[in-house]
């Protein structure tokens, strides 16, 4: 039986041992049993606009190069020279046909092939010239690129399971293809990385933690009708540890700065066009809000006023680094774009009206885990006995923790059985997305 999770279906009660948030041995296990055995989000294809564009970033603690090679193929390389280990590329981003290690000058193209090494005659004619190394598996789903360090992992399509549908709900917002904007939010938090996973789809905390934000919205919009949102969402177990809270349409009336009549008309027209193409029920779903976590550390938050992609990287048990991107439909008008950018900054930004509150809450929890001898358990039971769960409940976190516990301890927790839901959540795309063949 797991030391970390108590999944009592009789009471019912779900508890997580706070030792999981502070113990370095747990993080070491997470690295080998979760991060080395999952599909991990690398980036979005739209970030690499031209052949030979590259971005460097961290994936499961490893420095990587995310690039589009000269032929346009997306590649992920480990950013370490096969010669003596230095980073081949030290720039955060750029465009280069060749990446040259500054230590001894070995040079590689964006397809990973070695193209030169100074004084190569000294190596002898039979020397095997190594190229760049890559994670054993790289694949993408609708522009979202993932990699895995486990060569035997299931294909990405199978891994994403029910989460694919929620990626579709983002990807379908643009005819031209959704595009990640240049520029990222990067911040750190002195708390365990799993606390931000929980927080990212925790509807229960919104009204208490984010009072300041709602005060700003009320000041901008006048009276708002929170009954459109509160309790009007549902939470879903999407399989393989992925989960989502998804709201019915109406959130755009409550969140973000108000649009002008012209801006609102454009948004209405855009969703009508989506309805024409993909069906009205699908368009209705699109108009709702969604907070999605793809196990283990990818968050996609779609609040109509903007769509955020967030990646959470643990560094130590009590310290994480967070990167967030904003993904947009490139064809939308200036006002809708301005509203998105405003929300990206004022709501999700590291100095915005929501993120600092969340960071404070998580750091406060981490500090208080010093009491774990006396208070060893956190409670994640809300809605456990309910046949229907909302975003105020904690099904989504339990889903994540059950997968976490299975990978770390081997204890298998069956999913909670819930009542089926109707519209708008059951709305389907007119033509289902065809699953692509795995690329590597």
């Amino acid at each position, binding site marked *: 039986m797991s030391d970390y999770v108590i999944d009592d279906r009789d009471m019912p009660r779900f508890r997580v041992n706070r030792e999981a948030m502070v113990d370095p041995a747990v993080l070491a296990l997470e690295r080998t049993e979760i991060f080395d055995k999952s599909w991990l989000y690398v980036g979005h294809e739209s970030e690499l606009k031209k052949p*030979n564009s590259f971005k460097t970033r961290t994936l499961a603690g490893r420095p990587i190069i995310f690039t589009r090679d000269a032929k346009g193929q997306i590649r992920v390389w480990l950013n370490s020279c096969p010669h003596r280990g230095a980073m081949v590329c030290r720039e955060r981003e750029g465009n280069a046909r060749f990446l040259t290690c500054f230590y001894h000058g070995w040079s590689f193209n964006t397809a990973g092939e070695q193209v030169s090494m100074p004084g190569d005659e000294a190596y002898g004619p039979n020397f095997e*010239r190594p190229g760049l190394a890559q994670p054993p598996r790289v694949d993408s789903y609708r522009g979202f690129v993932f990699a895995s360090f486990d060569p035997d992992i299931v294909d990405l399509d199978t891994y994403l399971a029910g989460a694919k549908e929620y990626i579709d709900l983002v990807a379908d917002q643009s005819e031209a293809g959704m595009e990640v904007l240049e520029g990222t939010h990067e911040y750190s938090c002195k708390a365990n990385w799993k606390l931000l996973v929980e927080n990212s789809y925790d509807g229960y905390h919104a009204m208490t933690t984010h009072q300041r934000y709602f005060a700003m919205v009320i000041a901008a919009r006048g009276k708002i009708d929170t009954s459109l949102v509160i309790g009007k969402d549902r939470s879903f177990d999407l399989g393989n540890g992925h989960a989502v809270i998804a709201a019915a349409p109406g959130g755009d009336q409550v969140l973000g700065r108000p649009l002008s009549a012209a801006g609102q008309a454009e948004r209405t027209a855009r969703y009508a066009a989506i309805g024409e193409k993909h069906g009205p029920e699908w368009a209705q779903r699109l108009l709702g809000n969604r907070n999605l976590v793809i196990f283990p550390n990818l968050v996609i938050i779609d609040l109509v006023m903007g769509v955020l992609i967030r990646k959470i990287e643990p560094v130590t048990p009590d310290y994480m680094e967070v990167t967030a991107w904003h993904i947009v439909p490139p064809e939308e008008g200036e006002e809708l774009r301005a509203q998105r950018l405003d929300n990206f900054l004022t709501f999700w930004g590291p100095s915005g009206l929501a993120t600092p509150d969340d960071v404070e809450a998580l750091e406060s929890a981490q500090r208080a885990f010093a009491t774990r001898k006396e208070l060893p358990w956190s409670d994640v039971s809300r809605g456990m006995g309910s046949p229907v769960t909302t975003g105020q409940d904690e099904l989504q976190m339990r889903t994540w923790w059950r997968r976490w516990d299975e990978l770390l301890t081997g204890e298998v927790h069956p999913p909670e059985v819930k009542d089926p839901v109707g519209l708008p959540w059951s709305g389907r795309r007119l033509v289902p997305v065809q699953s692509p063949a795995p690329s590597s």
Partner: protein
Amino acid sequence: MTPVVHIAPRHDAVPTAVGPIDVASIHLPGTPRGAVLVLTADTNFEHEAATLLNAFAAAGFEGHAADVTEVRGTPDKLVPVLRTLIDLVGEHGWTREQMGIVGYANGGGLALLASAWFELGAAVSFSLRPWSTGCSDLARHIAELAPRIRTSWLYLTGDHDPLLPRSEGRRLEGALLRETSVYTQIVTYPGVGADFYRTSPEVPAIAAAFDAWQRTVEWLELHVVPRLTPAAEAWRRRQAIA
């Protein structure tokens, strides 16, 4: 930019479709990093060409410099001239992707034209001037060519250049991002004019010229395909057979 060793370039009059063009060349022993074709439009070609070719040699690039001050016209007239000059570099064993082209003023316009007609390793234009007379809208001139650009192109200019005001430069950047299939970049230096790369006692121009040179060499390093060494070629042959 001043190398310790000064190599005197060899000069040749190269016959082209518009008549003979004075070409200065510096050849390097061993396996140079790449080749560069410099298109200058300066009055003092002999001095400028020698200085530039020595500077490129110090960065590892074999160089040829052509005086294109008088070379103007429409693309159908100019492309054959460019082909002659590119083939001249090719005669020394360089493939097109192993070549960079760097042009100044009128030569900058030709470097852009070359980037649209030929798939080279890299192209750089300093304060480019249109290749045809009577062109008053440089941004449109460049934007119209954008869908054809096949070589990674870097454009360096000053924000006092009357042919490309800063606001136009920003619009042009957007057009290039949308329209080109390869990577391009515009760098606009504040407080300097179109002649910022020439010797100047003014601090902004000195800083801009220094930065522009660094960017030029880096652009070539990043985009020009290296010539394989004999050992590397032998290894590739074995790999292909295997």
